[in-house]
């Protein structure tokens, strides 16, 4: 379960790396249609690994 933080009277969820990665699913698919730079490739692999890790 994600933790929460209180900020300016509101409660916010602390970002879960796997959920944050999942939100980028569509843009990651779009990334595959072009040549990837090393940083883009690294970011894509990180997000894949974060989602895989959450599945284990």
């Amino acid at each position, binding site marked *: *379960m994600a*933790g929460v933080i209180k900020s300016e*009277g*509101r*409660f916010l*969820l*602390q*970002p*879960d790396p796997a*959920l944050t990665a999942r939100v980028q699913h569509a843009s990651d698919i779009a990334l595959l249609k072009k040549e990837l730079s090393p940083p883009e490739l690294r970011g894509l692999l990180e997000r894949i690994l974060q989602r895989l890790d959450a599945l284990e």
Partner: protein
Amino acid sequence: MITIIRNPDRSIKTYSEFSDDPAALLPGESLETVNAAFSEYSRRFTLACAGRSGETLRFPRASGDLTVEVRCPGESTAALDINGQVETLPLINGQAALLLGTEVPGTFVLKPADTARYCPAGQAILVIEVV
């Protein structure tokens, strides 16, 4: 008259308006009776969002702040467990409200912090998914 089943740690597991058979208890659980009507007992602590209570709610990410209404009739404060973080709210006429942000996807689970006093089930627990 209602019957309460307590977990070994004294938190309330469940309650009903029918008499439960003590033989059905798991090891460490205990049974007690309270002289109250079911509806009265179940309204001692309730949570609602967007007029809905006792169900899992789902809202899109970045859809604005959500207001959760807390009702605890006759009390001046209410201790709430929000994803494991305890927040004590001052109540006005037994009511308070708190805001949840929807910027980050995930799941909010809100329930009473004092589960020996209030059963974290039914209208006393609220699960809100931000997707």
